[in-house]
């Protein structure tokens, strides 16, 4: 518990609701409590999309392009395996690292990305890929360690680094470079002094992918400056152009990389909360230690579903990817016809168009709010994903084609009326 009076730099009041003195006295004694959040928790601002989300929830006619999860249902074979596991009473804990059968299935599965990991010592099944990322930070980041975060990127990395006691270092990437990460960008941001680099490709929110050559340049930077890498590859199966490349396959990188993946995106299993981490034995053991004290083991029912997903659901993934690809092409083509610049997303299910040119003062939050209030189209302001995202919107095409067309028609009217 921190002593707020000794922490002048800690943000006061604001979103947390704490008063400037740190006390919790209110007019309503029933609502008073004596808790003061820990400093590292207090230091993290609330999610940038929270207020926006509340507006979206208050309307009934919303077409949401703000959803970061598949609009498909998990394949029936996977659901069936989950049901069967319950019918057979498989409701106890599993091994901390996850069911051996699942780890073996994961080892076979990742061979398609030229990744080879030992199910006994190098694979850890987690409660969603989010837990795997969090474990990597908590197990590998010491207080004061600098963690480089290319931005824009998924909103949870920065708080996760802070919660682990690390210092986040934003590394801006740019629309003009198709959001790819370059050694120059890393150097310019001071990442040569960092301890860890977090990658997310295909990327949420930009949809950017990295080619083998682009990753090789980043890998060289990491080797030269001795950076560890946490590579979140949760969207690997949703790669449209070329093949997904994992940085862990590049020379010298396997021994310094934690690869994170999971079942939420490719298999539309978001609610089953299942992910995994691939890492060399030392890192994997450290992450497993944190996991076993915090989570014990990932959900058993979901693990049964995951085994079946890996064994029998490749065709479902191909079908979903084909549908996303169709929507992706439609969305980006339509945006460009409306005069809105957008880098072609090579993966995931997001487009990240630049609205700065058509937004008042280039303010993406104001633009998104006005778009929502005027047309009922919800899109996430790009600045929610870090400074690099300012002036952009994240549009998810994990929504049906009819809604996508209607949303674009409304956007067209909205832009024409401005």
């Amino acid at each position: 518990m921190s002593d707020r009076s000794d922490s002048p730099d800690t943000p006061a009041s604001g979103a947390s609701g704490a008063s400037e003195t740190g006390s919790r006295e209110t007019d309503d004694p029933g609502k008073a409590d004596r808790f003061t959040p820990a400093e590292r928790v207090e230091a993290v601002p609330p999610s940038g999309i929270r207020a926006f989300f509340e507006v979206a929830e208050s309307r009934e006619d919303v077409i949401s392009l703000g959803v970061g999860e598949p609009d498909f249902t998990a394949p029936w074979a996977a659901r069936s395996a989950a049901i069967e596991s319950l019918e057979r009473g498989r409701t106890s804990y599993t091994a901390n690292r996850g069911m051996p059968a699942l780890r073996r299935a994961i080892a076979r599965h990742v061979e398609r990305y030229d990744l080879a990991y030992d199910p006994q010592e190098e694979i850890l099944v987690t409660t969603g890929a989010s837990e795997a990322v969090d474990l990597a930070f908590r197990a590998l980041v010491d207080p004061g360690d600098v963690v480089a975060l290319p931005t824009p990127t998924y909103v949870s990395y920065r708080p996760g680094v802070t919660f682990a006691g690390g210092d986040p270092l934003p590394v801006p990437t740019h629309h003009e470079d198709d959001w790819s990460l370059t050694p120059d960008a890393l150097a310019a941001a001071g990442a040569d002094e960092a301890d860890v680099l977090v990658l997310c490709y295909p990327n949420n929110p930009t949809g950017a992918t990295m080619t083998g050559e682009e990753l090789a340049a980043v890998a060289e930077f990491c080797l030269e400056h001795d950076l560890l890498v946490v590579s979140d590859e949760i969207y690997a199966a949703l790669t449209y152009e070329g093949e997904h490349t994992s940085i862990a396959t590049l020379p010298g990188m396997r021994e310094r990389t934690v690869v994170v993946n999971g079942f939420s995106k490719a298999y539309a299993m978001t609610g089953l909360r299942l992910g995994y981490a691939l890492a060399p034995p030392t890192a994997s053991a450290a992450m497993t230690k944190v996991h076993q004290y915090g989570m014990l083991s990932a959900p058993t029912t979901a693990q049964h579903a995951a085994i079946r997903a890996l064994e029998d659901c490749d065709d479902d993934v191909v079908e979903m990817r084909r549908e996303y690809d169709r929507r992706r092409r439609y969305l980006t083509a339509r945006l460009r016809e409306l005069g809105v610049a957008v880098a072609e997303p090579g993966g995931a299910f997001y487009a990240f168009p630049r609205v700065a040119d058509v937004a008042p003062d280039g303010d993406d939050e104001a633009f998104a709010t006005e778009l929502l209030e005027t047309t009922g189209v919800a899109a996430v302001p790009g600045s929610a994903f870090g400074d690099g995202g300012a002036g952009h919107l994240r549009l998810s095409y994990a929504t049906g084609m009819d809604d996508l067309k209607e949303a674009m028609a409304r956007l067209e009217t909205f832009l024409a009326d401005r």
Partner: protein
Amino acid sequence: MDDETRALLDVLVADARESTADIARQTGLSADEVDARLDELEAAGVLRGYTAVVDWDSTDADRVAAVVEVNVELDRETDYEDIARRIAESPTVDSLRLVSGDYDFALDVSADTMQAVSRFVADEVAPLPAVTKTVTHYVMETYKERGVVFDERDDDDRLSVTP
């Protein structure tokens, strides 16, 4: 078949009313290329028609559908093609397939009344010399038609905005 043509057909199967412009956006082809390929596919007999999927139960129209199994016995003068050509002539027949298993032809038929379906089977199919047996199954409820699920529930319970 190249990827673009396959994508074009996928788009049309999902929604035959897609505009040329929207097909172009989804396939990466230009609008002119889409038109040209559609012409080619129609001329080659790949694209045989563009029809609607109708949930007749949601209308007040009288509509009776049935699945008819037909067994036939071939002779030197008559083959499956001959029989199929004869049965397919009737506008009552929506689809006609030669299938493996306990019977030879599977027909999807529809008409305004049950009597009309019965008359079709009794007057146009059963009397054919090659036909040895028919079994008519009237459709009591349609749950899915040509890939479209007839289900009112389309709730999206995902959060409207997520990180």
